[in-house]
């Protein structure tokens, strides 16, 4: 308080410097500027370690351990997957909050809000793409985190409960991703969620299943109520559940310590918390710099991927009257869709996933082997790998390539010009569709190379189906492109074939394509052609 005597004693400059250092120390919750400099130079701390102070002073740091065992800070021990999952939840919260500003969860507005976000909000598309990419990465990384924990045997005593909360977090992550799926209110969203909630209907007994389905959808079919419920699940309920279980999970991680590499401790021992003084790596500064750099680098990677290689899909507005061909679940539910193709809805959609979940939770109690070393755990590791391979096969069976082929002409047209999404014809676009009538029997050739390629594919696809399908004989196709309006072309696909009864049969499908329409794929280099618009004549 007494400024005057202090000034007299220390001089003006020293007093100001001391005051500045004081402010700095308050901001860093206990570390003076000189100590920061010593940290950056890599000098050892003094004793008692002044770098421990923020762990007791600062709220956000008090949940972090003050030091780690050197072996667990190696990147290849944990791959930082847990940290990354947490960080992605943070990214999803931030981008999600920004998206909420332009979104109203009603069927009248949701889809137009998406269009407005894409076409009228600066960086709106980036935010949406980031949110979607973050969601898919989060599922991927949470799963990878679980696989890593399984392979290193880290679920074993005393970490059974940590594993349990982890399984809950995985399930919540999947539900979060899935509930967000409905919000754009497009065909993709509507039908994926219709199929998803219809599995709830299969819960036995019937009255329970119907009630669950009704509670989820808010009506017998998804509509305004269902959208509102999924929205609230997505932005409020599930994040809160995730938040709660995250802290339980993380508390347990800190409490027991990250399990050491298995060959660094005796079988049956758990010495993660007994770190010898010479193996300690302090959070400040080493681990903090490491984690911060890792997350910043990861963020940069996400920004680059989102900017150039990833576009969240947006199909036509949800139409309860028409199911698009080949409706698929998001990729992380392909395995479930595969199961549904080979078994009854109650078994594949409810009982098997339920059993799987219980098995997953019970793993630490079923596996009585005390050793965490790979060579002692052959049964566990082989069964884990087999389970992984089964999941991959089931996922492949969940894609439209397996067992849902429609009639040949439908598939031929779907391949070239799908009902939703891009396909090769929309990819070459309006400018490369010359007006005319092209009959595959005449092997037409135009001046447009890209269009010739489409015609060739059309021909080849018809020939391939003719060979494969005995009821599809002497087939040929006619593709006509006409000018419907200024800037609008009509594309008519006609396929003729002789059925086994010897009758001529015909399939017709008409599409329209506008000059300015842009269609895109979810993964792949983005189209930046708009940067240089074509010269106007």
């Amino acid at each position, binding site marked *: 308080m007494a400024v005057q005597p202090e000034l007299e004693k220390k001089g003006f400059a020293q007093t100001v410097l001391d005051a500045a250092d004081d402010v700095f120390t308050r901001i860093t919750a206990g570390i003076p500027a000189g100590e920061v400099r010593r940290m950056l130079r890599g000098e050892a701390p003094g004793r008692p370690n002044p770098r421990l102070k923020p762990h007791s002073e600062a709220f956000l740091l008090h949940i972090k351990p003050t030091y780690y065992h050197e072996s667990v800070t*190696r990147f290849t021990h944990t791959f930082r997957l847990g940290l990354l999952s947490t960080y992605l939840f943070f990214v999803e919260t931030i981008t999600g909050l920004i998206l909420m500003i332009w979104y109203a969860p009603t069927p009248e507005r949701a889809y137009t809000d998406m269009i407005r976000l894409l076409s009228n909000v600066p960086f709106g598309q980036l935010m949406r793409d980031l949110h979607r990419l973050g969601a898919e990465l989060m599922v991927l990384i949470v799963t990878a985190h679980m696989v890593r924990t399984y392979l290193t045997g880290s679920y074993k005593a005393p970490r059974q409960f940590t594993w349990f909360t982890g399984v809950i977090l995985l399930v919540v992550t999947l539900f979060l991703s899935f509930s967000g799926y409905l919000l754009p209110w497009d065909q993709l969203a509507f039908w994926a969620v219709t199929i998803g909630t219809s599995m709830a209907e299969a819960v036995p007994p019937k009255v329970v299943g119907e009630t669950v389905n009704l509670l989820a959808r808010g009506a017998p079919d998804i509509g305004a109520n269902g959208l509102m419920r999924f929205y609230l699940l997505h932005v409020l309920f599930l994040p809160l559940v995730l938040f709660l279980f995250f802290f339980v999970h993380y508390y347990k991680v800190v409490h027991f310590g990250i399990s050491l590499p298995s060959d660094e401790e005796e079988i049956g021992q758990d010495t993660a918390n007994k770190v010898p003084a010479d193996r300690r790596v302090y959070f400040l500064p080493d681990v903090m*710099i490491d984690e911060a750099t890792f997350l910043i680098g990861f963020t*940069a990677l996400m*920004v680059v991927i989102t900017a150039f290689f990833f576009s969240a899909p947006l199909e036509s507005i949800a139409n309860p009257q028409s199911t698009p061909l080949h409706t698929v679940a998001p990729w992380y539910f392909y395995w479930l869709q595969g199961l549904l193709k080979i078994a009854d809805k109650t078994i594949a959609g409810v009982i098997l996933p339920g059993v799987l979940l219980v098995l997953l939770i019970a793993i630490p109690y079923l596996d009585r082997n005390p050793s965490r070393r790979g060579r002692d755990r052959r049964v566990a590791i082989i069964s884990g790998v087999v389970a992984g391979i089964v999941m991959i096969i089931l996922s492949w069976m969940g894609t439209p390539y397996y067992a849902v082929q429609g009639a040949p002409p439908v598939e031929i047209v779907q391949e070239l010009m799908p009902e939703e999404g891009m396909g090769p014809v929309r990819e070459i676009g309006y400018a490369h569709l010359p007006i005319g009538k092209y009959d595959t029997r005449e092997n037409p050739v135009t001046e447009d190379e890209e269009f010739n390629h489409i015609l060739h594919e059309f021909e080849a696809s018809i020939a391939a189906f003719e060979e494969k399908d005995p009821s599809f004989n002497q087939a040929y196709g006619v593709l006509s492109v006409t000018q*419907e*309006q200024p800037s609008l072309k009509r594309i008519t696909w006609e396929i003729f074939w002789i059925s086994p009864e010897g009758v001529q049969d015909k399939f017709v499908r008409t599409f329209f*394509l506008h000059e300015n329409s842009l269609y895109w794929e979810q993964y792949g280099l983005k189209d930046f052609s708009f940067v240089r618009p074509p010269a106007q004549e």
Partner: protein
Amino acid sequence: MKRPWYSFLYVRSPLVKIGLGIAAVMLSIAVLLFLGVIEDRRMAAQTANWDGRAIEKGAEIYTNNCYTCHGPDGKGLPGVAPALHSKYFFTQRLKDVGWTGSLHDYIASTVAAGRPSKVKSQWAQMMPTWSQRFGGPLRDDQINNVTAFVLNWEKDALLQGTPDNPDPWQPFDDAPSKAVAEDGSAPVAETPVESTGPRSPQELFAGANGMGCSGCHNLDLPQTADSRGPVGPNMANLYETAGTRVPGEDAATYIHNSIVAPNAYVSEGYMAGIMPQNFAERMTEEEINALVQWLLDPNRQR
């Protein structure tokens, strides 16, 4: 302790890590700056994209619902439904009916709520209500799409009346046209096409200067209990049924009377007053007779 063979990949120096972090931040900023620079063009492209997709969807709806009356190219069918793809519609129609809103609103509300009155209308059928709000099949977004599709004719329609595009000026009768030509006089009325001899039955039935019969009567489907024309009876089996309708009238007389005096006998299940009653004035007797013969021909040529 053992070090794995890939341990040389570990970055150990904190300064190198900080340097990498700063490089990553710079990279992100560079990417965001690039996106910021092209953001206006991206938004413009997206706006055009969604407008284009609305027109695509509108085209599908038009093809499924509207073209039977308003014609495949939107130029209407005489006596059935007005031309939308016309200069009159884009330049004068709003003034004639005294609509103060935009043409988009006029089209959207007409599609949604229909045209319930037939007062002084030259059209055979009333515009139905298409909106789900008024008992029709279309959602609001679909009405907007089909409106976008109709509005997309504007560029072409405004060129009408030039030598390249000789489509006529086509006012509606329900509102007296207040259009004024450039010199202040009333606009040139639609000049009837100079007749160069009798028109063919095909032209009368479905041609651009015909009577618009094809808007309500389908020539390819038979008129049976399972296959009824929604507005007027189907005509694929007319040669079989025409003679059986009115006792004492043979097929040719029945058809002839049905054309010149449609309300004298109305087929069961259809309303009187739908079919225009001025065909006797709009066609010569010779043309009507040819049309009757053509309609009764089982192998009629299209």
